[in-house]
């Protein structure tokens, strides 16, 4: 379930270790500590969970148990393009779950996870406030209404193409500079 940490994250772990010292070694501090870790890293990688367990001298099982109890904690790094699929009442009725399933299948990850290249993450959300467009998915900041399974691939492809274009333009401008 774990991904390799990036160099920035490894550096962040170091400052987390320092920050830990400011907390008393009490079980009651577990949640504030987890919040502090998530503030640094945007999610709770297993390295950090183990660090916290070690610091508080409790079992990793307990840390994970508490962390997974609360919705506020994430266990996967956010993707560059977070995909949010609405499963609110209206979207549920219009088969939002099929949309979710399609994203999951295309990206090869499950709801709550992030692709290995950290490009995409999938999350299910409850009503995002545009029920008339149900079923709805949000990728990054853009809302896509009237989703259909056939549109999923197109949307993902569009992002790939945009990425390609950006890359090419970057290369072009770099070669122009030199």
């Amino acid at each position, binding site marked *: 379930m774990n991904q390799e940490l990036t160099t920035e994250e490894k550096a962040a772990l170091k400052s987390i270790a320092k920050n830990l010292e400011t907390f008393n070694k009490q079980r009651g501090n577990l949640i504030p500590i987890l919040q502090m870790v998530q503030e640094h890293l945007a999610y709770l990688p*297993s390295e950090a*969970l183990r660090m916290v367990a070690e610091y508080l001298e*409790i*079992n*990793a*099982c*307990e*840390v*994970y*148990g508490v962390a*997974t*109890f*609360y*919705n506020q904690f994430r266990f996967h790094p956010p993707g560059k393009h977070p995909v949010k699929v609405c499963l609110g009442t209206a979207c549920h009725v219009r088969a939002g779950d099929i949309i979710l399933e399609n994203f999951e299948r295309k990206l090869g990850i499950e709801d709550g996870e992030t692709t290995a290249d950290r490009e995409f993450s999938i999350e299910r959300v409850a009503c995002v406030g545009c029920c008339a467009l149900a079923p709805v998915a949000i990728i990054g900041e853009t809302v896509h209404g009237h989703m259909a399974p056939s549109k999923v691939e197109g949307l993902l492809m569009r992002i790939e193409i945009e990425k390609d274009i950006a890359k090419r333009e970057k290369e072009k401008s770099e070669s122009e500079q030199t």
Partner: protein
Amino acid sequence: MPKLIIDNQEIDVQPGTKVIDAAEQLGIMIPRFCYHPALGSVGACRVCAVKFLQGPFKGVQMSCMIDAKDGMVVSTTDEEAVDFRKYVIEWLMLHHPHDCPVCDEGGHCLLQDMTVAGGHGLRRYQGKKRTHHDQHLGPLVQHEMNRCIQCYRCSRFYQKFSGYRDLGVLQIGERVYFGRYQAGTLESPFSGNLIDICPTGVYTDKPSRFIGRRWDYERTPSLCINCSLGCHTVVSTRYREIVRQEARFSEAVNGHFICDRGRYGFFYASQEKRPRYAQINGNEVSWEKSIQTARDQLNRISQESGPGAVASVGSVRSSLETQAALSRLCQKKGWQGPVYWIDHGQEMNVKTAAAELADELAVSLRDVEQADYILAVGADPVNEAPMLVLALRQAQRMGAKVCFLDPRPIGLPFSFQHISVAPQAMDLILAHLLKETIDQDTIKGLEPHEKKIFDAIPNNSHLVSSNQKLLNAVANDIRLSQRLVIVCGTDVVSETIPERAAYFARLLAKMGKQVGLFYLLPGANAFGAALLSDDAPTFGRILDEIEAGLVRALVLVENDPYGYYPDRPRLERVLQQLDLLLVMDYLDVRTIQDADVFLPTLTLYEAGGFFVNQEGRIQKASIAYQGGHPISQFSNGNHPPRSFRNQIPGKEAQPAWQALIELANENSATPKQGVRADILAWLVKTHPLFSKLPPDNAFPSDGIRINPGKDIHFRSAADRLVVPTLASESADQMELITVDWTFGTEELSTRSPHLRKMESKPCVFMHSNDAAQLDISEGDKVAVRSDTGIVSIHVTITDNMAPGVLIIPRHQRLDWQHLGASKITVSKDQIRKIREEEPC
């Protein structure tokens, strides 16, 4: 006492009884998943709903959450309640897989029973089920998470009840998951209980996976003989072998649970290597021939050199019947023995314990749970008597403080105080604590001989002053406590400790406290052995006499000195000198190779019998099956296993007591029936203590307790307690002690292939100060040189043990028998770091 009516039947119950239990007392079994008498109620599963018709509650309520009250009228069969329960089952089954056919729980599954009983035979839910990944939890417990119905029994048992933390509840809502953070072997030595308490097939017994259904097995009440507590178990037998062992409820001993050493410790009975045929000089012969030969030779030797030329050694793992038969044989023939202990110090400790355990001081394992203070001296429960840990834990949960006086790195799943001092210093510290706690009035009222012991306690020493603060706190806690239990080990302690602990207990009782004394003994029937071996010679003396040619024949009954005698070269040499070595055993012990005559005996599963546990409780194991090779060893892997013969192969073995009686009789025509009754009659006649022994068919399930108390004096040295031994401390001397381990040292459980996977590697424990001084780091290999040999072993460094001490578990894979004695003193230059590949 609340009086209520359940289903038109009236019942009086104790205040605080839950309605669900009140109903059970009437024989009405209200469905339940989350409720468990040992774990209490949480109201999580909603399946125990009943209808309250009158009284303080009205309508459909959870019977596990409500205390029985006067005037309640309850219906378990009311239509509304039945309907409610039916829907509960249906929703619990939503995500439950349809996998009963491939689930090992099927046949004894509470969920299966409730589903069928609730009438939910057909599923209506058509949707997708949520699924989970399973975890590898080690060699004992199989995990299958999809079957979970979220009753929380497992996490409550694992964390709350027993205090271990590596398994628990994770996630939330629909995703709730019971497991570990990451796959891995469960850390708790009580993990097998998950299998018993999970009402579905999430945790199942791994070693017996897919072998059969509950109804295929013959289930027999039995006992665990893997330590001295004697927990109650039930064994499942099929095709002439034990397949599974589970906990059996016992009010007085183990409650609802057992430890993993016990649960999986039975495999010795069906070991392929188990000797099943009588032998003379290593050649298979008939049972009769073996008996005849042994009898002739024993008679000849005792005619030639006198009966004292025959000595016998009995065993603490033998049944009381066998021990009695051996005593009777020795008495009749005038032989020496029986000796039960290879180590004389241990023998004295056990005998003292048995003698000191007066009826008014003895407490049962369950009584320990009620204490508000527990002082443990020279006891390491996880390693010596695992189930004591759970009892201590229950006391601790109720607010009791626990303090250990022990040199070892004691590990317990809850917080406790630990005074870690060298074995030599323990008596002094204990005496000091005693002096600090007993009040003036009590001292004034002491009998002169007791006063003398009290006065002899020295006032202060450097040992005390270096632990002053902790000792003061402990003494203070003891003074404040009301219900105190002193736990006392008999293995690593010096010879004065068991007596001092009893003295302490008596004085505290005089102070008006409720005091219990709880000894731990080495071996399931060590207590019986202590009672039946009054003035036996020591094993050491027998060896001397063999060397001197005075003893010419040795009879070993289910005892293998190679496992215990700390000087192997000498033992090998001495046994060679015998004219006759007669060995009887059901284990593949090393002495069989040396035996002139060998007789195979039966295990407790095949012979049944009485065992006396460490509190003097005689308990009975029933016969589970009729010996012989398990069919699986003959059926070439066929399924179902079949083999056609006109007699059972390997069925020659007899109970050891049968063999002993046949040896005692002059002709071979000893009947096979009635021998046991005969032995018991003899025992009752010769030993007044056993006169209360009830007949087999009226034997209470919790056994009967016999405590000799002051009437029986095993020892004469009355004033031995006077001066506590002062440690002769020298900076470069270290005390080396050999100890027990949960897995890896005990003779029976180490023959279980599954428990072998649980063993840690042999190692020597060393305090970090000593390690630093000797320039040794964790994992280094050292050679410890003693007067008789060298033991090379890896080092584990720890801080929670006494400095100046080396601790070596008597691991079956370690030749610790080259140390020369079970406790020795070594100087630091006898410990040398060696390179891994270097031969030693």
